[in-house]
């Protein structure tokens, strides 16, 4: 079963626009929610992450919004740039007693048009 569901699968945004990617999860024992960014030919790399005790985290143009009651979190990319074109994965970490593994969403391929 897919424990972390991500949408949309692909996204096209104009330069300067806002990119929004959404994720939903089932397991309330997840304790850490990172986003990874992957450029073609490269492995994923950590972009930004949030703990479930806060509702928002911002780093530059990237913001995670977290809704614990709805079991949803999203990535917002403000002033999107062509250099942001990549595949983005949300993830959730199982609690320590469950092994602490990261469970990934299906990925979103973002294309920012100049």
């Amino acid at each position, binding site marked *: 079963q897919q424990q972390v569901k*991500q949408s949309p*699968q692909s996204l096209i945004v104009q330069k300067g626009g806002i990119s929004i990617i959404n994720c939903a999860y089932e397991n309330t024992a997840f304790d*850490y929610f*990172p986003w*990874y960014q992957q450029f073609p*030919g*490269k*492995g*994923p*790399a*950590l972009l930004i*992450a949030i703990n479930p005790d806060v509702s928002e985290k911002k780093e530059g143009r990237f913001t995670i919004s977290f809704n614990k009651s709805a079991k949803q979190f999203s990535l917002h990319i403000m002033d999107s740039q062509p250099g942001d074109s990549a595949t983005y*994965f949300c993830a959730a*970490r199982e609690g*320590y007693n469950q*092994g*602490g*593994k*990261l*469970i*990934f*969403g*299906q*990925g979103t391929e973002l294309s920012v048009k100049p």
Partner: protein
Amino acid sequence: DVKVTQSSRYLVKRTGEKVFLECVQDMDHENMFWYRQDPGLGLRLIYFSYDVKMKEKGDIPEGYSVSREKKERFSLILESASTNQTSMYLCASRIPNTGELFFGEGSRLTVL
């Protein structure tokens, strides 16, 4: 600079062949992971290892095995490759109980 190296970037194998994918990390991390990446399915965990000689099944271990004889090296083995194992394979490592995985650049395997 942290580094996870996957020795084979591209492989083409025939059905039934035994395939070894090698991964080496230079960060002295205890935890290592093998994921497979397929379009629309994201990253799915095949096997992971908390430390040397240890291994645990992930979500899709069927058809795979692993070896962790040294801390820095984690190998993924396909005993008898099948066409449905054509995929991108990603190795990662991390410090235990932290969230950040460090990934290699991937090994793209095609099974004919």
